[in-house]
């Protein structure tokens, strides 16, 4: 497992949409739970991917047991607002008045930042929860944040509120939340990335924006779906020889798409060669972008290989096994 993530109880996971952020979140959480760490996965009012990834049915705002030591919840923003008001406003009468007032409800629904703040305040509350022995109820809380474009906004909402509201219970609560989010010794921020042009750019940008907004950057980057070289050793050398000696210059695109294929051995070989060349292109592209990623960030970057499985659950399982084996303290580059 990734050593630096063990230190902090709170782990925020973000990344550009589609990089496998939820899959990695699920795998990290399962990996922690498998080692006996009591772990909670938190989703932030989204179309939840956890059902497929953890093989559960996650309702709205409802704590679900996944396996021993692993629970999950998909926060519902409106519930978080109600709960936050109950926690932050000392008088039950005031809370009832506000909740019973349609205009007040409209205001809280439409006002910017209220939902995000209420969800973070809920995360703070979960973080502070203790069991019968007075020990923290969860050893790790893994929060699946919105995609990187919105993650900075989400994470900085507490300090924005603190600066704006200044006094009173909400300002105090905002301060407490901001202290957790801004402190590297309390929370880790993990970015999931793909070894591709735009995801790498966005990850580098994200680190900069986090530094500007929170005074801290990313802690770990996980490069997901890294393609290994399709062939190695003698086979790779023979393959190069084969490609160099191909008769006629057929189009690679035609071969890939099977245009003009007649089912003969020669045609099939050409398509197999084109397929492996495509896979090798992926590998080379990955090398290039991983190098760029490592050069642009002063953050540990770990590679996770691509798994050719057909469903999320199987991919998550393979990933857990992989992360479990990944006990070396040094970040590894698979593609090099």
């Amino acid at each position, binding site marked *: 497992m990734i050593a630096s993530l063990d230190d902090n109880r709170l782990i925020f996971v973000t990344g550009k949409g589609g990089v496998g952020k939820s899959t990695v979140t699920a795998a990290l959480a399962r990996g922690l739970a498998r080692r006996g760490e009591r772990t909670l996965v938190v989703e932030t009012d989204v*179309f939840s991917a956890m059902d497929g990834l953890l093989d559960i049915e996650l309702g709205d705002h409802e704590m679900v047991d996944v396996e021993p030591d692993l629970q999950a919840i998909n926060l519902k923003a409106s519930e978080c607002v109600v709960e936050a008001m109950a926690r932050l406003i000392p008088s039950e009468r005031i809370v009832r008045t506000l909740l019973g007032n349609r205009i007040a409800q409209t205001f809280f629904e439409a006002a910017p930042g209220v939902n995000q703040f209420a969800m973070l305040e809920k995360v703070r509350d979960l973080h502070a929860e203790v069991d019968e022995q007075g020990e923290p109820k969860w050893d790790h809380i893994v929060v699946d944040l919105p*995609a990187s474009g919105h993650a900075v906004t989400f994470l900085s909402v507490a300090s924005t509120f603190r600066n704006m*509201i200044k006094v*009173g219970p909400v300002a105090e609560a905002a301060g407490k939340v901001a202290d957790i989010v801004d402190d590297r010794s309390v929370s880790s921020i993990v970015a999931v990335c793909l070894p591709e042009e735009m995801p790498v*750019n966005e990850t580098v940008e994200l680190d900069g924006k986090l530094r500007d907004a929170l005074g801290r950057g990313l802690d770990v980057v996980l490069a997901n779906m890294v393609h290994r070289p399709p062939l190695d050793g003698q086979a790779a050398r*023979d393959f190069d020889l084969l490609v160099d000696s191909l008769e006629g210059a057929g189009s690679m695109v035609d071969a890939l798409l099977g245009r003009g294929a007649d089912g003969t051995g020669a045609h099939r070989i050409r398509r197999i060669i084109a397929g492996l060349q495509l896979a090798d292109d992926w590998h080379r592209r990955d090398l290039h972008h991983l190098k760029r990623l490592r050069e642009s960030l002063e953050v540990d970057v770990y590679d996770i290989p691509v798994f050719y499985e057909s469903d999320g659950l199987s991919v998550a399982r393979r990933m857990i096994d992989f992360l479990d084996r990944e006990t070396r303290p040094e970040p590894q580059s698979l593609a090099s």
Partner: protein
Amino acid sequence: MSQPITPIIEDGRLIVCAGPGGVGKTTTAAALGLQAALRGRRCIVLTIDPAKRLANSLGLNRLTNEPQRIEFNGQGEEDPGGLWAMMLDQTETFEELLRRNAPDSASLERSRSNDIYRLMSTTLHGIQEYAALEKLHELYTSGDFDLVVLDTPPTANALDFLDAPKRLRRFFDRRVMKWFLPDDQRSTGLVSRFINPGTVVLKLLRRFLGDSFVDELVEFFDTFQYLQETLEERGELIEYILSDVRTHFLVVTSPDPRRIDEAFHFRDKLSSLQQEVTAFLVNRVTPPFDEEDLEGLGPEDLQRVRRADAAPLEAPDALLDAMGEHYAALARLARRDRHSLQRLADAVGQDAVQSIPVLGEDVHSIDQLRTLGSFMTSQGDA
């Protein structure tokens, strides 16, 4: 099989590209725009993604809040069509909105210095989606372009922008505003002041949000009263634009089963907003590799595709085995993709699905955009 994309780039006035992240949505939007330009249309691609991605695919260092013309090979001086692109700068767009609508410079100044305004225009989303619609409206009605292609942010709340005018109008709702405006003429009478539930709420808000924040809030609503009308008007216009028959929604996705599920989610969300998806573009489909290709192959087949004078391979049997092993993994991926496409076609109809094969590198040049676009508008299936 009919081809769903060509008619809409030839005749549409607005194409909204929605869909999960990481499927090449921004690049797809740019490729659609280029195809329209190549067909003689004046097209602008607007991205509202906070990350600067469209510029990457267009070979530009950066995009600005103003339309930038994109040069591409093969475009003649006299060609009627053209391609423009821009990236939304929400702060700048909101500023423009204020400048155009503020009754006087004093209220403009007050707006700018108000903390809540600054929070709204820079930090929090919602306003970003609204600003996008504001820009969309401007481009749509400017008369400069035949077609607007709108790229949406790749998040679960990507379609929030369709709700944005309604949300903001709710926020500036007169009923909400009037609690915060104690001097409002509408409630001058002692009795109405007394029974105004807002007075109670305001007092409560002061208790737990603090006086300075509530004062700021009151000032905010006071200053922004003038926006109320504009927002209402814009909201209606935008609803009109979105319901126009020449407005099309495309869901861009990839064959990853999870992204297909998300595509269904986008369709359902759109349908709840009374919008129909014109077509589903499935990007990055693995070429049709098939395990059958491996059957009965021997080292002699390797020789058959080689020049007669080529040096012998060191270990052709081992090479064929290693190739076969990796190709089988690619074939599994291809099978998964075929299954995904079939599942989508079963649900939405074959005619609404267009697949685009993955053929190699990232797209980051105009030529690659053109190739991508030609797959989008071709009959050939990946």
